[in-house]
């Protein structure tokens, strides 16, 4: 009987995907709570630091929710290695199973994880990306957050594009497909370089994106306006050279005192009235939900970051 159980267990172990486990460490004052970055640990953020799992930052994949099997982790590691070699940026994959109803909670969790685990420690601006998946069955969420110089390469528009593209894969839990797509896109955008809009922006010493509006030459507008003005100028001057205009009436020769109307009748036919509601004229301020490129909240991580996520 024991043999049968053993065979069954071996069979189950063989056919089921092998799950990896993440090793975490304790945060103590002796190891400066596991934070070697320049963030000062004080009363305002100590709670956030302590609740953030301390992991080995040489790893890149932290699948707390066990959503990837060993093969998938291996594939993802290859992708990350290739990406980091190409860009010099750190890439972190983080999955968790947290009952977070708020996007901000998800963001705090993922961002603190990056900031308080020494990711990107070798880079002046701690540059890197974290792909975060909250696999909680009630509050599924996925997000990409950017740190340091990656905030320049992956602006809101590009991140939105990536998040929208991989939505179906993450929603259907086809993670690897989504991850492959994600890497294709982040590699593509990296090769495209920093968007023109951010070409004058830079990252400050704390990793915040300092937005400086870039001057974008309005080629199209200048061309169209110059074309219109030139056309009007040429037409006006050509018309000025055409002075011959055939007289079509004889107003100058009309003796106005000779005008005599024997019948002058204005017959009313009908009337029509239309009405429409007027605009009140009061302009309501529009509230736009935009994901800020740089955020810092009390208690949360100290560095600047960008990015956002989706429910699903």
């Amino acid at each position, binding site marked *: 009987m024991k043999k049968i159980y053993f065979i069954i267990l071996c069979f189950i172990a063989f056919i089921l995907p092998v799950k990896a486990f993440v090793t975490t460490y304790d945060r103590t004052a002796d190891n400066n709570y596991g934070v070697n970055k320049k963030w000062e640990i004080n009363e305002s953020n100590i709670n956030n630091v302590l609740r953030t799992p301390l992991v080995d930052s040489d790893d890149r994949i932290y699948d707390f929710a066990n959503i990837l099997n060993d093969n998938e982790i291996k594939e993802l590691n290859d992708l990350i290695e290739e990406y980091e070699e190409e860009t010099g940026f750190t890439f972190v994959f983080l999955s968790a199973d947290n009952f977070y109803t708020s996007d901000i909670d998800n963001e705090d969790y993922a961002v603190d994880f990056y900031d308080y685990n020494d990711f990107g420690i070798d880079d002046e601006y701690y540059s890197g990306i974290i792909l975060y998946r909250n696999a909680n069955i009630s509050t599924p969420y996925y997000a990409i957050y950017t740190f340091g110089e990656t905030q320049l390469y992956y602006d809101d528009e590009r991140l939105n594009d990536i998040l929208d593209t991989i939505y179906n894969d993450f929603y259907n839990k086809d993670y690897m497909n989504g991850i492959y797509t994600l890497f294709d896109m982040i590699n593509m955008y990296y090769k495209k370089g920093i968007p023109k809009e951010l070409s004058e922006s830079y990252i400050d010493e704390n990793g915040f994106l300092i937005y400086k509006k870039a001057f974008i030459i309005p080629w199209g507008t200048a061309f169209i306006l110059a074309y219109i003005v030139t056309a009007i100028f040429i037409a006006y001057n050509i018309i000025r050279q055409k002075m011959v205009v*055939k007289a079509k009436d004889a107003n100058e*020769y*009309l003796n106005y005192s000779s005008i005599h109307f024997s019948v002058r009748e204005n017959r009313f036919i009908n009337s029509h009235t239309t009405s429409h509601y007027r605009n009140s004229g009061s302009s309501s301020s529009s509230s736009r939900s935009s994901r800020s490129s740089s955020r810092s909240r009390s208690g949360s991580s100290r560095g600047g970051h960008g990015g956002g996520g989706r429910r699903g």
Partner: protein
Amino acid sequence: MRNKSNVLDNKCPSCGAPIKYIPSLNKWKCEYCNSEFTLEEMQKHNNASSLENNKKEIEDNFTDYVTYTCQDCGAEIVADSETAATFCVYCGNTAILKNKLSGKFAPESIIPFKKEKKDAEIAFTNVAKGKLFVPSDFTKKENIEKIKGIYIPFWLYDIEVFGNVECSATKVKHWSTSRISYTKTDYYKLYRSGSMKFFKVPVDGSKRFGNDIMSSIEPFEYNDLVKYNHAYLSGFFAERYDVSSEEAFSDARNRALESGKKAVLDDCKEFSSKTITNNNLNTSIIDKHYVLLPVWMVNVKYKKRNYLFAMNGQTGEFIGNLPLDKKKVFLWALFVFSIVFVGIIIISYITFLGE
């Protein structure tokens, strides 16, 4: 066939030299003895003949006469059947082919030139000023010298326009409360019946000159119309009409009808919009006059095309379509485009720096 007797050459009553009409003096002046003569004085001389005399002359078959003999030097003057006054190409004297302006071709009145050739030359020189696309050599001296004064035959019509017109019209009124805006449109049918008179509507009586250019130099001030006298033609070319009064009238009629419609619409000013839906306007000729009107003209050939310019010899109104120098058009277009293009970019950058 040659006809010597019908060529009139105005001569100075004092010295017998050729004499010309000087517009600024409103007199005839001899360039040799400096004598000046009024119309009355010229009429006393045999060289001048009055309208009454003209009308008494027997109408000949003018179209056969294309060659004349200059009274002064005896050279042959060749002119087409519509030319009434020209110049001898050898001695330069005015040759007035008086039988061309007699009988049914005898003008009733004439407005003598008030503007002289130098005025026309200045006007022609100035016409290109400020016009960017005119070829640089267009107003060169060679072209200016071609300017010549011509008495153009015109028909002047006194016209009555009469009939009735039906219009659709609306009156629109807007008002509003605090929340609602209202627009009330009242629809009307308007009826007008009546008449109006036009006096001396001019139509060019020569096929040689386009009606467009002739109507562009209007109006002439008819107060200066004087009884026709051959003497006024001295120093100028002249044409006789080759468009009959009946043919020319259609132009005057159309113009009068157009103005008649405008006058009706002007009578309905209280309406916001009005459109003529039916018009039954007609015209009748009250009177017509055959007159010669003074025009300075120059015909310039540029790149195988003729450009005709005309100046009202009385008011100085100068008209003509100037040729386009395509190279200049292109260079100006390029220049303006570049300036605007660069300007927009600079303004954008300055605006950007100011933000």
